[in-house]
């Protein structure tokens, strides 16, 4: 199921209470997960992620995903139990220029003495509503064998 409401997703992603986990793999297939501190949905529907640390494993893996044309996965969790799976493709890593400098200034205004390694732009390929209730309803409808019999017993 695709989550097609841009404004809805934007509100969720741009909320400070939302937790987003980025899952990537490195060159030899080792998985890596990281909580993203600075992700937002831009007006044109691209995800913009500010990578603060040059040494971050996630930055290296994002670079590899751009270099070798691989997708990345993001899990978005809201405090009310909402869960969304986003599949995306890194389309650009910006390490300099006017917009990068604007982001650098913003980061330092917000976080104090912090650095910025790159502004990463991720194109969204798919968004799936992964909230437990939605997933359960989907499973009940699509996989009728996936249940314990006692749930069907006469009471």
């Amino acid at each position, binding site marked *: 199921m695709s989550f097609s409401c841009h404004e809805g997703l934007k509100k969720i992603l741009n909320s400070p209470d939302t937790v987003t986990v980025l899952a990537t793999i*490195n*060159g030899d297939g080792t998985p890596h997960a990281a909580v993203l501190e600075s992700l937002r949905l831009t007006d044109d529907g691209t995800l913009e992620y500010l990578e603060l640390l*040059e040494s971050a494993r996630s930055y*290296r893996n994002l*670079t*590899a995903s*751009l*270099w*070798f044309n691989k997708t990345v996965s993001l899990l978005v969790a809201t405090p009310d139990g909402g869960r969304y799976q986003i599949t995306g493709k890194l*389309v*650009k*890593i*910006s*390490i*300099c*220029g*006017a917009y*990068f*400098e604007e*982001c*650098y*200034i913003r980061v*330092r205004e917000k976080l104090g003495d912090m650095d*910025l390694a*790159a502004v990463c732009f991720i194109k969204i390929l798919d968004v799936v509503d992964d909230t437990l209730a939605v997933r359960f309803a989907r499973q009940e409808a699509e996989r009728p064998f996936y249940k314990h019999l006692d749930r069907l017993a006469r009471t």
Partner: protein
Amino acid sequence: MSRNIVAAQKREPDLGEIIARYPDVPPLIITKIDVQRRGVHYTERALAVMDAARHQQRSAALFGSRDAKLTPLPESLLFRDGTTVLTDPTPVEENPYHVDFLDGLLVITDGGRVVEEVEYWPVPDFFDKQTSSGTPMKFVVTARPQRLNVMPSSYCHFWTNDKGCKYCDIVNYLKHEKSELKVPAKLSPDDVKETIAEALKQPGRFSTICLTAGSDTRGTVPFDEEVEGYIRLLQAIGENFSTKKFPSQLIATAFTEKQLARLYEETGLMSYTADIEVLNEKLFNWICPGKAEWVGYKEWQQRLIRAVAIFGRGNVNTGIVGGVELARPHGFTSEDDALQHTLEEAEYLASNGVSTVSMVWVVRPKSYFNDQKNASLDYYVRLARGLQALRLKYDLAMDFDDYRRCGNHPDSDLLRLV
């Protein structure tokens, strides 16, 4: 470059074939190598979107370029992964890639086919300013996307008795540059200090300072003058920083331990590079006769190794001009032999804490080797992989000379994965 050289280049496997041959090497890095290897030609459409207020134009460089001109052109290119591509404007007859503006995008094309999207380098804010002595700051300090370049002097004393490196055009280029641009031949520490101070007013723009110039053999001990000049400049630059040490690289002659210790202790310098240029003693003696005469191949290696004890492991490296080991008539006649030998010697250095980085040899019209051909794309890709594999094998970091702080070494671009 003769028609034969272009014809030979066209017989070699092309970019697509090499990308398919090396699935472990990022296609963007292979593309960068080929763009550096073949150079670029800017179309009228591409030049029409160059905006001097936003884009950096070709500035005073240490070495010349393939077109032997100083006309206003974009300084260089950036790929969409942040990779820096130092390009050389190249005459169309020499089969360069074309930089074009198509469907609202700046792209490089080959034979009319779009290869990759590119951007021009952003111009630094300080480029339109002058120092209090009236020198345009862009002639005092030049820039890459994230690096400041200080080139204190464009003269190399190895040319005094005609023993400059055979691929190098520094002295001939200097005459050209000085007369056409009025670039100062020697920089004053005050001008440099003031320009760096101005550059630091642009938050997020720069992450390192690199100093380099020609060799200066003068002094009680050879190169004392060169060392003294760098110390003066580094101390002046250092006055802009709150910490004693600041991210910086010196690319210079192979100095003695005493000279290196002075550089490390008396300044904020954090890393050191002495380019050995070619990893073979016989070829070094032929191609770099000045370095051979004043230092010697084995001593050059030992000075690099000794520098590790002073600057620390991971902070010392050497550069080679990739492909020059195949120069005629004394170079290797097979790319396989050249690669094997180069990597063996690079391994000796790596095992002693010294990284090797390669540059793509750009044949310069004002150099002694002006009629030669650089190596195949396949060779450069294998060289990049081989040098990076040595860093992994010997667990050698090289943060000071990576994609952001330099951008001229395809092998060190691969550090982004580690």
